[in-house]
């Protein structure tokens, strides 16, 4: 990493630290198109559906899918998150952990923690087992905010997911509150 200021949270995520003014200059930036390391597979689909307890036979049965307009099994839209690297540990991180490759953390801002607040997903064509996924991101907006967890900025990033044929399948617009640890009033602890 360069001489830029970085902070790492207890989870190991690396944040580029800067001022609000520096961050604002990044609005509108787009990332390069990157093929996600893992294609869509049946295990992803079943594992995802299992967590939601979703019995939709489109996710569980190729035979059922053939009776529909889709012609086979499809993936619930959320499976796009499973095409990315796990980012828990990699051999090349033995010396130094790199920045996390998303604008939520690479845009320079004071915050060193994340909390998702808004989510919008659009699907134009479902992904299927075997599909390879290419992703680009665009930094949409940065808005100063204060919530109970702290003081920071709402950062909105829109991601575009295309299949191996270049077809835009899913867009995913997430707004995440990037805040500074220790600056909020907090919640009462749940019991």
């Amino acid at each position: 990493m360069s001489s830029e200021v970085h902070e790492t949270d207890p989870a190991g995520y690396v944040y580029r630290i800067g001022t609000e003014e520096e961050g604002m200059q990044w609005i509108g930036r787009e990332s390069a198109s990157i093929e996600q390391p893992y294609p869509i597979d049946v295990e992803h689909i079943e594992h995802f559906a299992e967590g939601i307890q979703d019995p939709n036979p489109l996710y569980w049965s190729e035979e059922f899918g053939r009776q529909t307009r889709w012609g086979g099994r499809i993936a619930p839209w959320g499976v796009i998150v499973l095409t990315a690297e796990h980012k828990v540990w990699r051999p090349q991180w033995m010396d130094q952990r790199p920045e996390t490759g998303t604008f939520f953390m690479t845009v320079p801002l004071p915050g060193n923690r994340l909390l998702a607040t808004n989510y919008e997903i659009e699907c134009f064509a479902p992904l299927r087992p075997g599909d390879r996924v290419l992703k680009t991101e665009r930094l949409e907006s940065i808005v100063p905010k204060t919530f109970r967890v702290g003081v920071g900025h709402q950062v909105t990033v829109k991601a575009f997911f295309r299949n191996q044929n270049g077809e835009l399948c899913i867009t995913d617009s997430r707004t995440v509150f990037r805040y500074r640890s220790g600056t909020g009033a907090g919640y009462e602890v749940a019991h």
Partner: protein
Amino acid sequence: MPLPPVIDTRYDEVEIGQEIPAIGIGPLSHTQFVFIASSHHDWYPAHHDVEYAREQGLPDIFMNATWQHGMFQRLLCAWAGPNAIPRRIAYRMGRPIVRFDTVHARGVVTGKRIENDLKMVDLDIWLDKQDADKVTVGTAVVVLAA
């Protein structure tokens, strides 16, 4: 297990103001939170580490945005049928969904229209939990079977 029949909601059956069948899950155990972290590759510790979540000023570990999206997609697909497609799902998360919560996803039809030969239905959607209504609120657009 025998395959279920292919049954789709028809556009002419849909009425504005109609509530669609709710779905529920819970109480959500700590194990389920860890399972979701694993099944989404989302190891941000506030989703599985109670001590970390509380240090961050949160009440407990909480369900991530993708899980909530999955609940809405399950709700919409179960109602609309296998040949429909949820075109857009958008929501804002308010109070966090934490351990031992029981969560219901609900929806009500707010509009219907045909655009470019697509039979589209607009809905308000939300998540309730046992002690609070509409902890997550949003809207959806579903394209029904042709």
